[in-house]
């Protein structure tokens, strides 16, 4: 296993390498044209269209009609939306804290080169190699009382007295199941990113600290944490964004239930569009989510930049 041969996370910069002056630069336009067409047609056009749609009554199968700002005002009256927003925020907070703790713990556990460590890294990462929807479906079977081993195992060690419905019984149990699923599938992925951060810290720093008589805890707080700040920021950014946009873990594992207790914002968007056939309302919600997340990302990037400089 040769996970983690790479020591640094390259930074995204807009400028890139200096292009050569003498080359026939216009021919570059030809090479960049396919990318420009894809970006224009499938990225910029839908961005404009989603705003346009949000200003219209836009049924799935009939002609649209201008109705601004009805789609937006009706979002405020829709109690399902309010519940979904609250649920998504709560879910994001819980997942981010737990997933980060587990991922960072795993990264610290396997950061040193020693016998067998590559196997452990590979094992923790393995669920991340399986597709997200596939993993969710796998978990649905694992947690089912039809073929799943979970109830039997827990009963045999005496943790539960009777079979529990992990995905459709108690709302907090269903919530817990989605959190466990997310940690199982994504911890190894985040561990790899954190591990790269850990390994980019010069060993000399730790050696100097040891010579100066620092304890491992002090070294962790004074060296590891400060040096890891950009990586931690990146990982938290990914976790928050991913959780805010959570869909599969609810749509597939819990069906948004029991009741609507695990219905996320993205699930509401899909429901507005393809169950209620109201594309205008779905577009208005999309615009709000888009603005919220772009603002959030911009804030996080600004924070990272500031710390870096």
């Amino acid at each position, binding site marked *: 296993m040769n996970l983690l041969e790479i020591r640094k996370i390259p930074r995204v910069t807009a400028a890139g*390498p200096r292009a050569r002056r003498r080359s026939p630069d216009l021919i570059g336009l030809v090479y960049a044209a396919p990318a420009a067409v894809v970006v224009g047609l499938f990225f910029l056009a839908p961005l404009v269209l989603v705003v346009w749609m949000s200003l219209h009554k836009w049924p799935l199968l009939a002609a649209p009609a201008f109705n601004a700002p009805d789609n937006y005002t009706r979002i405020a009256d829709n109690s399902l939306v309010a519940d979904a927003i609250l649920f998504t925020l709560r879910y994001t907070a819980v997942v981010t804290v737990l997933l980060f703790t587990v991922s960072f713990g795993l990264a610290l556990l396997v950061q040193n080169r020693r016998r067998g460590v590559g196997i452990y890294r590979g094992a923790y990462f393995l669920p991340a190699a399986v597709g997200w929807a596939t993993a969710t479906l796998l978990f649905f079977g694992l947690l089912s009382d039809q073929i799943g081993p979970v109830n039997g195992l827990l009963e045999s060690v005496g943790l539960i007295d009777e079979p529990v419905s992990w995905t459709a019984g108690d709302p907090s149990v269903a919530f817990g199941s989605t959190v466990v699923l997310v940690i199982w599938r994504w911890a190894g992925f985040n561990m790899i990113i954190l591990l790269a951060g850990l390994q980019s810290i010069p060993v000399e720093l730790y050696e100097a600290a040891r010579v100066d008589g620092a304890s491992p805890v002090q070294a962790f707080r004074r060296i590891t944490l400060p040096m890891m700040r950009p990586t931690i920021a990146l990982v938290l950014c990914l976790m928050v964004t991913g959780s805010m946009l959570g869909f599969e873990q609810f749509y597939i594992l819990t069906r948004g239930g029991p009741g609507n207790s695990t219905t996320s914002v993205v699930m509401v968007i899909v429901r507005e569009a393809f169950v209620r056939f109201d594309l205008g309302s779905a577009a208005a919600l999309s615009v709000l989510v888009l603005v919220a997340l772009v603002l959030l990302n911009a804030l996080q990037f600004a924070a990272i930049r500031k710390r870096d400089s």
Partner: protein
Amino acid sequence: MRRPAFHLGSAFLAALFVLPILWSGWSSVRPGSGFSLDSYRRLATYGEGVGVYLTNTVLLVVLTVTGTVAVSTLAGYAFSRFAFPGRRILFGLILAILMVPYPTILIPLYVLLGKLGLQDSLVGLALVMIMFQLPFAVFMMRNSFAAVPRALDDAALIDGCGSFGVLMRVLLPAVAPGLVTVGLFAFLASWNDYVAPLILISSDERFPLPVAIVNMRLHDFGAVDYPTMQAGVMFMAAPCLALFLVLQRFYVRGFMSGALRG
């Protein structure tokens, strides 16, 4: 940490991560009390037949991978070698795709593809998947080209190659690792993605595998065929697990490139 404690703890954790996958494989071959491939036989005739869904997925994968590799190679070449007008704007726009949450532009894309005559079409879906791959793929290819010394281009130009000849004959072999990484991630995205086909594809005979298999859970009210569903899970997971074991180096290379989607 002391060595026995380290190995005991690590191995226990490893079991927690690996056992669910092993369990899925196990339960797919034990629908009753003994070993049997019945659930795979039932999978073969599920819905339109798993062959139809597999064909759809393979078509989607081939279009997405070739499209992503072609577009990002040309763009990476352009960004690393030519100071063409609009270069910074285009690069910024491509990276901006990362800022926009995936599910929020699928609703307008549904309408837009309809206007382009690509409603309910795997070609339309592949074009959307290519777009979502671009930030990672272009970034990766630009850096791959940038790592190749200009002297190579110059030598080929003196030998009479045009700029396209330089790309095809001299640079492509040099950026092959980048190409594999870009292709691998395009494969994983198009093989596994659930949300985009769920929204953009509406007829059963055009569903890719994930949508078709997940429908076993969503549409069979009350009576889910669990072993067949796990057979479906294994069927979708197997190529990904195999690729992970064979291409680990490229996995890590991709994850470390900063262009990550959560």
